[in-house]
């Protein structure tokens, strides 16, 4: 399974090469990748359907329990098949849709990368592996939403999606770490065996954090706003990432962790409330959309809410309904998005009110669209019908608050029907309206794929048990954590659920018939105005930027001495604090056993330092500093360091000469700073000086025994054949350091040479 995931990433890396060699045909070749992967995953179908869970471990960071563990049960396989299956359709579709696009190579790189990451998410058993793939999907989604990077709105939406899902990702990581602390394992399969998770004190925190991750990814209220904006991406991307796969990653995570974290009132109710709210609010917002893709996007948000809601409901029927609806939705919504793309591509508009009567121009597309729309409406005998009926059935049997819960699902269902009619049927029937481009049928590649998806929705509807029975059963079992036996039937007889199903269709039609009125209601109700989490996003983003700007202005004002003051006073403050609060000063040994010569040197050096500071002319300042340097050299001699003294003498001389050469022609100093400023600097400098003196006294009052000292003394002659121990250390024991030192000198020399050379060329 690692190979399956990695193959996508490797091929993504090779894609530019493939395009260079094969030119236009490359996109078709690359489209075979998801097809092969689909076939490969399908080959596991029988084993998984028999209840087997296939595992595979590749060690990654075994010491920390982070491994690339992959496992495949019903849930993973269902998602893997959706990802590769719809991937195949989308890849082929994009080959035609983006045929003349300059950046088609990039598109395939990104989308292959996405597919691989997404497969990683759904098959990972290790929570950290899952997290890494999770973030990779956010990243590739960012790149794909921003595909039309020359449009500002595109870039903005891409960034918004990245920030929202990225923030959620951070929360998720924290949640997963808590989960690891609670259970002591990083493998989800092992967490299932751990008991007492829900009574652990960290349980609530872990749930909240994991839910933030899942809700941002699956665009649950109040994080839903990024998804409609993500429609800035090309249509194949919207179909693939933002309806069929990536946005379902959040739902997948909820499903995956349901047996680990679920079963508590907190978990179930939170999912019910957020799922239900998302479902209803998104439905209201969908009513006023005129852009085909935005309409479908809000409907997708509503459906994602429904799926979350069903996991929250948690009964067997609810989970089955959720799985069936998820599969059905992936099939019809991907088709509808692709068709929206085709309409946009061939007519030049996505405005629903401008689209009508296209069936005579685009017969094949129209046929697919109507098929997909019927499934979305929940029309007999499509797969969507079964999905909707099971959902209704689950809600009615939920045992408490049936009316409230049912109304929510009913609103979602009715608006879903409305969207299906508006997006899938309306553009093709009725009289013809003139469009920006004269419409004609889309190329074969652009309707062949949707035909496959829409017919799957039809065939699955007719023979639900033989095609999807096993996988639905195994998926629902994986979500529940217990074995669920189930037979899917298309027809349950004329019962209450069927009646309600019919009523939904009628209401959906009425919504469509009087859509202008409902649009007005939706606008007038102000649902979209007063519930605007996107405002919060904008506000916090601009606040963050102004905070950063203010902070930069405060800390990085461009004046070097300001930085130095900041650094020095921070060091002073922190060190001073420690010195005064937690260090015993009495250990300092202040014995004035100073000889006369030492006093002289000390006084001369201090005098020279003051002269260097106060000198009016540069030359005298440099000369005084030379005195300080020589003083240091004399100290080296006094304390047994003749090598240092020699070096110091020669270097000091060189420095003074160099300095004089560089500046002897400069005019006198100009007085730049006033007395107050000098006083402030003096205080800072003096305080630092006192601090350094204290540190020296403190350090030297500690008894230190250097083992290196005796090591070097003993081994200098026998090992390195040298009597001067300091030299031996430099050229033998620590020769590599000296090598580095020489390199630094060489670089400095090159720099000096380059600067001088630069000047000479400037003169020419």
């Amino acid at each position: 399974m690692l190979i399956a995931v990695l193959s996508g990433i490797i091929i993504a890396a090779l894609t530019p090469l493939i395009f260079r060699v094969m030119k236009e045909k490359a996109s078709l070749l690359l489209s075979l990748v998801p097809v092969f992967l689909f076939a490969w995953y399908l080959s596991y179908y029988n084993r998984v359907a028999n209840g087997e869970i296939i595992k595979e471990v590749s060690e990654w960071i075994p010491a920390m329990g982070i491994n690339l563990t992959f496992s495949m049960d019903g849930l993973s396989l269902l998602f893997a098949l959706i990802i590769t299956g719809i991937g195949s359709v989308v890849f082929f579709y994009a080959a035609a849709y983006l045929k003349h696009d300059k950046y088609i190579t990039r598109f395939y790189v990104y989308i292959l990368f996405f597919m691989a990451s997404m497969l990683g998410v759904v098959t990972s058993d290790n929570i950290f592996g899952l997290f890494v793939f999770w973030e990779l999907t956010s990243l590739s989604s960012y790149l794909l939403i921003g595909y039309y990077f020359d449009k500002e709105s595109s870039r903005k939406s891409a960034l918004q999606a990245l920030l929202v899902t990225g923030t959620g990702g951070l929360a998720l990581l924290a949640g997963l770490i808590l989960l690891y602390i609670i259970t002591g394992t990083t493998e989800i399969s092992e967490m299932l065996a751990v008991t007492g998770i829900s009574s652990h004190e960290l349980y609530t925190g872990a749930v909240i954090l994991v839910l933030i991750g899942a809700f941002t990814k699956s665009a649950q209220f109040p994080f839903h706003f990024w998804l409609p904006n993500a429609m800035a991406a090309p249509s194949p991307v919207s179909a693939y990432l933002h309806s069929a796969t990536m946005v379902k990653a959040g739902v997948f995570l909820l499903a995956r962790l349901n047996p680990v974290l679920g079963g508590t009132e907190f978990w179930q109710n939170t999912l019910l409330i957020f799922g239900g709210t998302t479902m209803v609010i998104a439905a209201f917002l969908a009513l006023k959309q005129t852009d085909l893709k935005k309409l479908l996007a809000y409907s997708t948000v509503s459906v994602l809410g429904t799926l979350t809601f069903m996991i929250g409901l948690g009964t067997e029927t609810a989970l089955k309904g959720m799985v069936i609806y998820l599969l059905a939705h992936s099939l019809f919504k991907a088709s509808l998005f692709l068709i929206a793309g085709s309409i946009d591509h061939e007519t030049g508009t996505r405005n629903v009110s401008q689209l009508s009567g296209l069936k005579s121009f685009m017969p094949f597309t129209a046929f697919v669209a109507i098929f997909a729309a019927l499934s979305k409406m929940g029309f007999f005998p499509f797969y969507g019908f079964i999905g909707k009926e099971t959902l209704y059935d689950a809600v009615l049997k939920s045992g408490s608050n049936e009316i409230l819960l049912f109304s929510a699902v009913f609103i979602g269902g009715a608006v879903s029907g409305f969207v299906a009619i508006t997006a899938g049927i309306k553009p093709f029937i009725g009289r013809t309206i003139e469009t920006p481009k004269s419409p004609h049928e889309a190329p074969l590649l652009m309707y062949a794929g949707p035909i496959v998806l829409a017919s799957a929705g039809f065939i699955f509807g007719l023979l639900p048990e033989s095609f999807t029975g096993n996988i639905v059963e195994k998926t629902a079992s994986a979500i529940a954590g217990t074995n669920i036996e189930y037979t899917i039937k298309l027809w349950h007889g004329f019962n209450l659920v069927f009646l309600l199903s019919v009523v939904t269709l009628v209401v959906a039609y009425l919504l469509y018939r009087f859509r202008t009125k409902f649009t007005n209601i939706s606008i007038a109700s102000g649902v979209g105005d007063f519930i605007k989490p996107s405002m919060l996003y904008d506000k916090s983003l601009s606040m963050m930027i102004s905070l950063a700007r203010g902070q930069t202005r405060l800390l990085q004002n461009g004046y070097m001495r300001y930085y130095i003051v900041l650094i020095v006073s921070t060091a002073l403050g922190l060190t001073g604090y420690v010195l005064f609060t937690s260090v015993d000063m009495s250990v300092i040994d202040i014995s004035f056993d100073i000889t006369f010569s030492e006093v002289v040197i000390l006084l001369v050096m201090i005098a020279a330092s003051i002269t260097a500071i106060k000198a009016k002319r540069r030359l005298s300042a440099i000369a005084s500093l030379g005195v300080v340097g020589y003083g240091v050299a004399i100290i080296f001699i006094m304390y047994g360091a003749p090598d240092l003294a020699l070096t110091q003498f020669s270097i000091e001389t060189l420095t003074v000469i160099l300095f004089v050469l560089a500046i002897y022609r400069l005019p006198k100093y100009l007085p730049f700073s006033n007395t107050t400023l000098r006083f402030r600097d003096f205080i800072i400098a003096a305080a630092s000086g006192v601090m350094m003196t204290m540190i020296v006294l403190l350090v030297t009052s500690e008894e230190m025994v250097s083992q290196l000292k005796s090591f070097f003394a003993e081994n200098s002659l026998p090992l390195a054949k040298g009597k001067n121990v300091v030299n031996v250390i430099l050229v033998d024991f620590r020769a590599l350091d000296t090598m580095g030192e020489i390199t630094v000198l060489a670089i400095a020399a090159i720099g000096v040479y380059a600067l001088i050379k630069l000047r000479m060329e400037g003169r020419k």
Partner: protein
Amino acid sequence: MIIMLAILVGVLYAAGIYMLLRRSIVKILLGLLFLGHAANLLIFTVGKLTKGKPAFVPEGGELVEPFADPLPQALILTAIVIGFGVQAFAIVLFKRAYQTVNSDDIDKLNSTDSLERG
């Protein structure tokens, strides 16, 4: 003897930091030199002082205590040489900057705009 060196280290650090805070680039360079001396002396002092005897192995014999610890000396030797590299580069860089901006004022180097005006 320690107290003397401790005071000296303090004075040199103070002088270095004071000079670093000036606007004149030459003074900043002098500050750099001061800090170099200060740091070298600091390491030398905290690395334990031994009067007189350097770490030389006598002819045919063994080195016996007391003798100066060779390790801090080796470190300082490296530091002196590298410090020189930095100073040489800084001095030449200053010279170039002076020729371009025609000023010793570091504030003149704040933006490329003032460079063009200059």
